């Protein structure tokens, strides 16, 4: 087991390195650089910057240096000084910008995952055990509708309805005045009273998918002889199902935990824009379009690492709960 973990850890580090490289490549992909975009934006406001200024800026930002050198500067800064570089737009170190928002992202997505599981488990099990029952159909239909609605669209409608019905505009994560307060019961409550909408939207699709997978796996497992064995032991039906088929059917699910994250992150980018959530999403979108490369790079990389770690955790979990994988992988 230890060897297994060790191997995975090394692999993870390699992956992260690759992530950093691609992250850097991606932010280099679009034509032009931050300055062209900067000029463009100024020009759109009828504003102008004289070429001398641009040249000075270009030198200051170290554009035009060879790709690898730029990359090395960046990565070494991160590794040795925890310095993610400067954000051009904010004229400030990237680190001062991202942590708060990244925290919000992790918080929201974490909550979303928890909600998914809490909802999906009972429904999925019920749907499988009571196959083709009314409940099964309801669950399945509900799940599929959840999958079918584009989440940003759902968010939009949710916003509009809550405005029409309750005269509430459900944007952001806090009501005015609460944004910069420190954590307190009141603030937690305020947070929840705002966060329900995004969490609902974010977890919707994932829940549907979990239900689906769980039902599929469970249906296969329920037919296995060991279930009969368990019944023959005199276990109650409930305990039989919970202890054996469900337990086995969970394995493939566990491996999805890590995989929910990137999808969640991606969809939260869009949803966050619609619902104006102070998460990493909008900042990323913004920095990518304005080619604020170090900021964008840092966010992509951190989100990447987030998911790599998520995957590692789910793999370890899987190995932990499924002896066949554990011993198979030796």
């Amino acid at each position, binding site marked *: 087991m230890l060897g297994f973990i060790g191997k995975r850890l090394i692999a993870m580090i390699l992956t992260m390195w690759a992530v950093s490289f691609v992250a850097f490549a991606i932010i280099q992909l679009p034509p032009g650089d931050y300055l062209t975009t900067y000029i463009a934006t100024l020009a759109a406001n009828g504003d102008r910057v004289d070429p001398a200024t641009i040249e000075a800026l270009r030198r200051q930002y170290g554009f035009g240096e060879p790709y690898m050198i730029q990359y090395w500067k960046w990565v070494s800064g991160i590794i040795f000084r925890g310095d993610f570089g400067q954000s051009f737009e904010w004229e400030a170190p990237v680190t001062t910008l991202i942590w708060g928002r990244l925290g919000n992202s992790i918080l929201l997505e974490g909550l979303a995952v928890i909600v998914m599981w809490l909802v999906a488990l009972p429904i999925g099990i019920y749907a499988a055990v009571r196959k083709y029952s009314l409940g099964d159909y309801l669950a399945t239909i509900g799940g599929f509708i959840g999958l079918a609605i584009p989440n940003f669209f759902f968010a939009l409608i949710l916003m509009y309805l809550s405005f029409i019905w309750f005269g509430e505009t459900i944007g952001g994560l806090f009501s005015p005045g609460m944004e910069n307060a420190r954590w307190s019961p009141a603030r937690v409550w305020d947070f929840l009273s705002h966060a329900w909408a995004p969490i609902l939207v974010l977890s919707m699709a994932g829940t549907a998918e979990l239900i689906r997978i769980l039902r599929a796996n469970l249906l296969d497992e329920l037919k*296995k*002889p*060991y279930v*009969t*064995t*368990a*019944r*023959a*032991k*005199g*276990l*109650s*039906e409930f305990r039989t199902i919970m*202890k*054996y088929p469900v*337990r*086995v059917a969970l*394995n493939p699910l566990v491996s999805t935990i890590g995989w929910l994250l990137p999808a969640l992150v991606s969809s939260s980018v869009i949803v966050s824009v619609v619902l104006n959530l102070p998460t990493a999403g909008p900042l990323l979108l913004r920095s990518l379009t304005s080619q604020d490369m170090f900021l964008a790079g840092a966010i992509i990389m951190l989100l990447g690492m987030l998911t790599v770690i998520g995957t590692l955790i789910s793999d370890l979990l899987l190995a932990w*709960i*499924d*002896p*066949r994988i554990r*011993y198979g992988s030796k």
Partner: protein
Amino acid sequence: MGCVMRLIPMGGKNMTQKPILSIADMSIVFSSPDEADIEAVRQVDLTLTPGKTLALVGESGCGKSVTARAVLRLLDKNALIQRGSITFEPKGEKPVDIAKLKQDSLPLRAIRGNQISMIFQEPMSSLSPVHTIGDQIDEMMTIHEGLKPKQARERTVALLDQVGIPGARERADAYPFQLSGGLRQRAMIAMALACKPQVLIADEPTTALDVTTQAQILDLLRQLQADFGMAMLFITHDLGVVAEIADEVAVMYLGDVVEQGSVFDVFAAPKHPYTQALMSSIPKMARKADRVRLSPIKGTVPAPKDRPEGCAFTSRCPHAFEPCPTIRPARTDLGNGHHARCHLLTRVPVEEPA
């Protein structure tokens, strides 16, 4: 046939015992949404007596497993015990009709595994792949006897030891796929015996195993039966195994018990043409001179749905005559608990079928 011989006195000894489980006139019907109902088992009568082994013999799909599972009500929802009773009468307790018990009801669960337990054909897939052997055996005792995990584990180790698993204590923490087929089956047996059941149902416990292991398992079972004095219902399609382990035998064909009785009677003087056919398909040990060729049964087993109203064997029976296809032959008592369902037996006897 030495073994068969050896069985007689033993059978004789327990003659006086009153049955612990008696299946009477039981029919099981499978219903499916888009096909006609199928009567997989019709009007079966079987009795089990403590310390004795009843072997249920037949080709695959003849309904023997269905019958066995019916005893513990382990059939799927679409299977219905249409008529008849399964009376379970442990020593000193009043009889219960298992057929009448509710699925997942307390009384039924109290019987399952505790008083009647079962061994399955494929030890691999019949054991949970993600729980250790130990866990799965402990559970029996924790649920039925409310033992603490520790005590339960002690018993488990003892059991594993008893069923001849070397290094029982370590093996208790092993997962099924880490054991050999034989050991798995032993573990399975250990599990079945955990609560000293009074009836043990073994559903082809040796089919998946190689011949030597098979023999060991059979010895083990016989041994354990001697120790625990339980009644055993032994399902198999292997007459050899029957000869080796059973006191009584019931031969099934397409859901009917065509012939039943003590192994000795049935083997020595099979009355039903099907039984006879089976017997003649076994190489007999005899002097070179009068060695007979194996005579396989002609024709194929019809699908349950084209089974004739009357005797199921009609289509393949060498002696079939008028009543066979239409009238179902009665259960004819041939004395000494030997029964068979064949019109030949009720017809004015002309000559015995050879």
